[in-house]
């Protein structure tokens, strides 16, 4: 049966292919703007939409490992449905023509009104087919729903009418596209800020609702570099139809430079602002800004040039070196009356970030003093 369907698929594909081809040409124009940034730095091959050869009549092109679970059973089921539909239509049309009312056509007796063996057979056969369909579907779904262990984790946040992607290095994607490496399984940890959205990538055959106050997850492993479309599938209001973006799958090795590039882009903001960002990500857990003590001393009373008493009785002058040292090795000089429980940020904060934190602390006190 699947031969029938694939034959059907390819036959239609050629005729439909041209139509899709031209339509895709304008489509790539619209995409061009979206991938301007990607195009400039990393040469991304034409999107798979542009050469319709790879997709069958029914399904968009298969660009991820997750499509193996879906495609074969999908096309098989299409073949089965076409076969059943043709069978029933043929029976109905044949009976209608053969037994239509015409003069001289009396009802040929005996006309059966029930036949239990026949009824049993056409109850069991659909039942067996259904069991097979369920098992095939379930095995595919288990694979779709369990992300592999060492997948690359990207956090996705759906908010009203746009998507926010946060990469492992803590940087948000500047122009709202999801960039992933090729042949590397990626796990998306998703949540929403307001209403229910749904993350749907037709090319990977995956979809998962994004629910507020709850995490949902998705995984895929792109096998073909390119740019694939992504839609919001759950109705979410006015611009539900505009809430779509693009998944850019990079060439091997291209992904690390992209991450570095956007991190660089994210860092060349004024140091104090960068410091504030670092404060929000890391320091806020123990240090406050308004003078009240939380776990550690408040940044407000770290006055540059002021005297601070240490646990071992000695008192030191607060300056950049002291702040830098207590960031890198906090146990060296512990302030009196505070627990020595601060973790070291040695590998976490780069020098640029530490300078940013220091500038931020200075800006706190400059504002209040001068």
């Amino acid at each position: 049966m699947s031969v029938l369907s694939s034959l059907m698929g390819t036959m239609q594909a050629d005729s439909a292919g041209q139509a899709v081809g031209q339509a895709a040409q304008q489509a790539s124009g619209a995409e061009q703007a979206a991938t301007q940034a990607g195009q400039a730095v990393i040469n991304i091959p034409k999107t798979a939409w542009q050469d319709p050869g790879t997709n069958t009549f029914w399904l968009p092109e298969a660009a991820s490992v997750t499509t193996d679970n879906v495609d074969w059973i999908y096309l098989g089921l299409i073949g089965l449905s076409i076969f059943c539909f043709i069978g029933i239509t043929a029976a109905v049309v044949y009976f209608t023509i053969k037994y239509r009312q015409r003069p001289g056509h009396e009802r040929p007796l005996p006309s059966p009104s029930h036949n239990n063996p026949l009824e049993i057979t056409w109850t069991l056969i659909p039942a067996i087919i259904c069991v097979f369909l369920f098992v095939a579907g379930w095995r595919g779904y288990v694979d779709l729903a369990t992300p592999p262990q060492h997948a690359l984790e990207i956090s996705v946040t759906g908010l009203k009418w746009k998507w926010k992607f946060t990469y492992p290095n803590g940087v948000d994607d500047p122009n709202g596209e999801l960039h992933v490496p090729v042949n590397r399984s990626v796990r998306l940890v998703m949540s929403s800020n307001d209403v229910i959205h749904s993350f749907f990538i037709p090319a990977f055959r995956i979809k998962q609702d994004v629910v507020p106050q709850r995490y949902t997850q998705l995984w895929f492993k792109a096998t073909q570099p390119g740019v694939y479309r992504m839609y919001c599938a759950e109705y979410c209001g006015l611009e539900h139809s505009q809430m779509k973006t693009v998944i850019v799958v990079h060439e091997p090795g291209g992904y690390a430079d992209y991450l570095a590039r956007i991190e660089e882009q994210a860092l060349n903001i004024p140091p104090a602002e960068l410091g504030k960002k670092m404060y929000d990500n890391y320091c806020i857990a123990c240090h406050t800004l308004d003078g009240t003590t939380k776990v550690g001393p408040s940044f407000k009373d770290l006055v540059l040039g002021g005297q601070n008493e240490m646990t071992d009785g000695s008192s030191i002058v607060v300056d950049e070196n002291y702040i830098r040292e207590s960031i890198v090795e906090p146990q060296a000089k512990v302030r009196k009356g505070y627990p020595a429980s601060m973790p070291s940020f040695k590998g976490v904060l780069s020098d640029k970030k530490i300078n940013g934190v220091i500038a931020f602390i200075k800006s706190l006190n400059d504002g209040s003093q001068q």
Partner: protein
Amino acid sequence: MAAHGHGEHGETLSHIASMRVLVGTFVALLFLTVITVAAAYVDFGGRGLNLAVAMLIATVKASLVILYFMHLRYDRLFHTVIFVAGLLAATLFLGFALVDRGQYEDDVIWDKDNQPAIKPYTPEL
């Protein structure tokens, strides 16, 4: 259909509950109410047990009301089928909703205090 009631004073449309049954059920219900309130002050050890005891007493009270006050015991079987069908649909609804609730993996539950830490990017597997 001949009337099938068998009350003391001639036939009537449906079963007549005798005074003894009515008062007996009423007293039993009062007694069980006292018991269930008392049971609330006794800790049966563990969260589930308290719930189970309270529900058991409530079910006994409910079945008393259904069987005797609502005449279900003397009535047509089909009325019992209807009521049980209602209960069955309700428990079905509860059962599947609980299956869904109970099967969430722990990393899916939203936990305000510890957001999922994002593992740093390791270029190669």
